[in-house]
Each structure stands twice: as C-alpha cells, then as structure tokens.
C-alpha cells in the first residue's frame, strides 16, 4: 500500500515536471507583450476595442493567413516561428494605475514591450516607466502632442496629434468660409478636464487664434458628469459659430443630447478623437448624431475606398467585438504590426536595434490611411493622416480635404426642430 502511494506520488511529480518543462520549452519561443488599456471605467468600451484590435494583429502575425494582404500574414510568427503572447492589463483610465500596471508588466510579467494606453493621461506615466527601463512603448491612438515632445527614445505613436487635428480643423473652417460661405468668425471649445482634453483645447485655441478667429467660449467639464446643463448653457450664451469638442464616450452623448434639449447648435461642431468616432455611439445617437464632424482615420466607408486590404482583417476583429474598426482601435493593431515588422527586420530582440529600425524605416502599413508609417522626432508618426468626416445616418462621410470629399458638408448643421 505504502509502495503504491509512493509510486503515485512520484508519477504525479514526474507529470508536473514534464508539464512545466513543456511550458518552459514553449515559453522559449514566445514573445510576451504588454497590452495596457482602460478595460473598466468610463473609457472601457474604447479600451476593450483597442485590446481586440491588438489581439487581431497578434492572430494575423502568429498564424498563416495567405488570404490576407498585410505584412507578416503569410508566415507563422516572427523571427522564424516566435509567437506573440499578449498580457492584458487594465489602466481603469487612471494615470496612477497605468504607471503601476506598466511596472508590473515589465517587472513581474517580463514583457518585451507595451502597447497602450488610449488615454493620453495614462500613456504618459506608463511610457515614462518603459523609457526608464529602456523598453519599447508603442502608442496607437493617444493624441496629446505632449507625448511626442518629450524626446523619448523608446516611445512611438501612430495617430495624428491634437496639434495636427486643430490645424486641420481651422484650415477646414477657412475653406468652408471661402467655398461654402459659412461665415464662421467665432470659436468655442468644450472639453473634458483631463490631460487629453486640456491639451486638445490649448492646441485648438492656439490654432484658432493664429488664423484670426475669436475664441469666445472655453468650457472645461469634469468627465462622467451627471449633467452638462451649465456647460451647454455657457456655449449657448456665447453662441460661437464653430465648436471644437473633446468629449469622450458617455459625455459625448450627454453633450449632444443636452444641446438638443436646449435647442441649440453651432454652425459647425468638430470633434477630436472622441465619442464621435465610436461607431456604437453614432448608432445609439441615431439621427441626433447627424451633421457632427470630426477627424477620422478610419471608417468602413473610408476603408472600402482607400484602405481595401483592411476588410479581410476587419472580419477577424468584428468577430471579437461586433463592430468594425474605428479610428482609434485600428491604430493599436497598426502599433503591433509595426513592432513585429521592426523585430523581423532587425532580426533580433535587442531593444536598441529594434528601436533604431523603427526610427529609420518607412513601413508598409495597409491598415493606415496613406499606407505608410515613418517616425520622426519624439517618435511621432510623420505619415499620420486623418480626414474630416460628417455623420450622415450613422455613416462617416468624408468632407475634407477636397481630394477625399464625397459630398458637400451640411453647414450650418440642420437645427433640431427641422430634422
């Protein structure tokens, strides 16, 4: 009996050892990457979509996909079969949590690089952690220009910045005044009181003033507010011709609906990377969301025309979240594709060599508008472009620049009582 027990114990021990040896062997050919996004909290919708986008890219890279015409799809893994393993972590949209999770991902999980973190306020401290540790931080869609003004060596951002978008908004307003006689003279801003919102507003004000527009309303609000009555009331009282908005998620819907309740609209409402770009929110707002505008890096309509290779990849993504890519999530997929291409080109996991490849290479990127990615000073993607779209019955219709425009924008926006 004793002998039987002893044998069972030894067999169990051998089995466990074999298992761990197996996983250790498997682990040798795995590259762990941290995926750090807000999975809970007010930005959870966007964060979960960003994770799904990175997972989609990992799936394409890890397995053979001969049907896809995107880099690394036709081979299995990188560096002759190395698979990418994602370690997902939650920032809750909070800078302090982002910092501590970045530290955990690096020190405990031992990830090679981090992809993240949607909110500029979270990307900032998280990337400071990776920079100190000399690890790569690939940032898809955080848009605060300050992120690429820090002269970091290991930080790379794909999306256009608020600065670029602000200049584009002002340029578009000048174009509207000239070509559609829009008569826009005054600008108002409404933005969440966060790193992202404040920075977007500063850039918006600077661009508007530089072009000679008068900024008549500057409305900051606390995100997640129970109502935006006084905010919209302030806008209504100042009655700017155009409003630049930086309201994420639920705040965006509340802003639109409060304007409807107060029966007020500017002639033009242009939105930064916000709730405007969320196809689910556009669907939920239905007709109320019509005629709002914003910078857009991707929508299925734009994809069908200018980024035809996305559709097949999008099928994988849509299965995970039930919606197509949006301007933000697609940038996170691009972030992983670029990192994987750089590792493949460097032929090594040496961080400095990979960073050098990222800095000096112009990458093919079928998932980016324009098809190319190349980084400039501070790690900003110099090829990042977005076009201005206007929502028409849930569809993001390009209206500017003229080379992309599919229709004449509805300016001024149709008043609430005439819809």
């Amino acid at each position, binding site marked *: 009996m004793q002998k039987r027990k002893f044998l069972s114990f030894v067999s169990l021990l051998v089995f466990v050892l074999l298992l761990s040896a197996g996983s250790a062997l498997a682990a040798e050919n795995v590259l762990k990457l941290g995926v750090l996004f807000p999975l809970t909290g007010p930005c*959870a919708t966007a964060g979960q979509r960003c994770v799904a986008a990175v997972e989609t890219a990992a799936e394409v890279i890890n397995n053979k996909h001969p049907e896809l015409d995107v880099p690394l799809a036709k081979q299995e893994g990188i560096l002759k079969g190395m698979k990418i393993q994602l370690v997902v972590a939650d920032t809750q949209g909070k800078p302090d949590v982002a910092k501590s999770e970045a530290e955990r991902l690096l020190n405990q999980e031992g990830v090679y690089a981090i992809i993240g973190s949607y909110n500029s306020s979270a990307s900032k401290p998280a990337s400071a952690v990776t920079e100190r540790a000399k690890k790569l931080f690939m940032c898809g869609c955080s848009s605060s220009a300050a992120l690429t003004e820090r002269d970091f060596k290991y930080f790379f951002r794909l999306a256009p910045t608020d600065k670029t978008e602000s200049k584009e908004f002002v340029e578009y307003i000048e174009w509207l005044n000239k070509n559609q006689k829009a008569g826009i003279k005054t600008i108002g801003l409404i933005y969440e009181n966060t790193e992202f919102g404040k920075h977007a507003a500063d850039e918006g004000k600077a661009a508007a003033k530089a072009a000679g527009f008068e900024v008549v309303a500057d*409305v900051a609000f606390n995100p997640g507010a129970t109502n935006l009555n006084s905010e919209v*009331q302030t806008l209504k009282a100042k009655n700017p011709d155009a409003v630049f908005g930086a309201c994420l998620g639920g705040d965006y819907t509340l802003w639109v609906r409060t304007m409807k309740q107060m029966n007020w609209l500017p002639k033009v409402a242009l939105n930064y990377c916000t709730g405007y770009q969320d196809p689910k929110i556009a669907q*939920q707002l239905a007709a109320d969301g019509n005629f709002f505008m914003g910078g857009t890096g991707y929508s299925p309509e734009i994809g069908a025309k200018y980024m035809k290779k996305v559709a097949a990849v999008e099928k994988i993504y849509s299965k995970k979240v039930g919606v197509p890519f949006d301007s933000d999530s697609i940038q996170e997929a691009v972030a992983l594709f670029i990192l994987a291409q750089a590792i493949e080109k460097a032929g090594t996991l040496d961080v400095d060599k990979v960073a050098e490849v990222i800095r000096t290479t112009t990458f093919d990127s079928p998932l980016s508008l324009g098809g190319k990615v190349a980084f400039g000073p501070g790690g900003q993607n110099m090829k990042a472009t977005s076009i201005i779209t206007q929502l028409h019955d849930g569809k993001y219709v390009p209206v500017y620049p003229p080379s992309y425009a599919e229709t004449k924008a509805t300016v001024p926006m149709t008043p609430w009582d005439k819809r």
Partner: protein
Amino acid sequence: MSTLAQVLLDGLLAGMLYALVAAGLSLIWGVMDVINFAHGEFLMVAMYLSYWMGFLAHVDPLFSWVASGVFVFLLGALTYRFLVSRCIGKAAMAPLLATFGLSMFLKNLCLNRFSPNFRILQSTLLEGKKILLGNIVIGMPQLVTGIFSLLLLFALYFLMKKTRLGWAIQATAMDREAAELMGINTDRIYLLVFGLGGACVGIAGGLLTSYLAVHPEVGSLFGLIAFLIVALGGFGSIPGALAAAVIIGLVEALAGFYIAPVFKYVAVFAIYLAVIMVRPKGLFGW
C-alpha cells in the same frame, strides 16, 4: 434675465432628480445607520432594466419605472436579508464594506454581461419634447422626473409621518431595542426600509433612461452626490433630502454658469463643508 431663469430652472430640475436618487439612501442611512455603498449601482441596475424593457419589449420609461422600482425593491430587500443583516452588530465598518463589495460586484457584472457600451433608448414618449416659455426651455423628461420626485417624496413623507408603519420605522430608528419591546418586528422594518430605499432609486433609474445613456459607470457620481445630499439634509429626513438636493442642484447650475463649469463641483462641496461646519447634523437632522 431669461438666462438666469433658465439656469435656475435647470438647477431646480437637476435638484429634483438628485432628491429622488437620495431619498432612498436617506431612509436607509437615517433608520439603520447603514451606509449603502451600492446605492449608485442600484440606480445603474434600474437603468439597465428600464433600458432593456424599452429596447426589447418597447415599454417606455414612463411605464417601466414601475418594474424598475419593484425590481430594485426586491434587490434592496435581498441585499438586507443576505448581506447587511449578517453584518449589523459586527464591526462598525462591516456593512459599509459589504455594500462596497456588492457595488463592485454589480458594476462588474453589468460590465461583463452588457459590455461597457453606452446605451441610449431611442424614440421614447418624452424624447425631444419641450415646453418653451419665451426663451426658456423646459425639457419634458426632466420636468416629468421632477414631478415624480415631488410626488414620491410627498408619499414617503406621508408614509413616515401619518401611518403606523412610518411611526414604527421612526421608532426603530430612534431606539431599536425599545421598539422591539413595543412589539415592533425591527428586522422586518429594516428589510422594508432597505427595500423602500431601493424602490426610490429604482424609480429614479427607470425614469432617467428617457434622457441619459446607460453604462456600468453611470451610478458612481449619482451615488456620491446622494451621500452628500443625505449628509447635508440630515440623516433620515425626507424634507431635508429635498432641500439639500435643490440647494445642490442650484449651486451646481449657478456656479457652473456664472463662475465656470469646471468649478461646479468645487462649489457644491464647499457649500456642503460650510453647512456641516455650522450644523453637523445637517439642515433637518434628527
């Protein structure tokens, strides 16, 4: 002048809504001395119920508030029976931590089941309806919520002051042991109070879906403001909750418009601190 009137009206209607959310918490806190940290999440659950009833069965929030009220009444009663009753009489922080755990559970359950997406109910009976008084706009959903709030608070006040049940609740709040000696089943009173508290916030949540997006985080700030109102108005006082809610609504609107929108919660908490320093029991505290 019309701008001032509009701001005051917005503040008043926001205050009415806050009163409806806070009334239930005031009851629970006043009677049982238990802080229900899941109060904001009760609101969220009610909003989801109302949303799904509207989305799937096309029941308008004008009617689905009944179901939301009943559902959260049951949720409140079950919370008391299976969670809070086991903590009362233990460590002082036990009920607080238990309800905090419940709030996390409810929030994450909804996050998991319904995703973090923002859900808006379209084509409700009140959607887009408004009354125009010159330049002043009164949104119908907000007005209806305000009227409901007044009616419900009046009914609660009547229940507490004019009925035997209300007297029993008050007696239990004042001295549980003495109330038991007088033949009051205090355990049942607690159960009922938790249920009633839930029903109030359930009705508020049911109505709110006619103009507010539903998502797992929606109850957080409402919950916080409800705590503020109860402390400001005085624990257990229904008129106190109404007065405090209206004060907070007005301060929020006036500070938000005349100082800066980002300053509105600074002003709200400053008023709260000022009142509490002068009168720690709150405006109408027992």
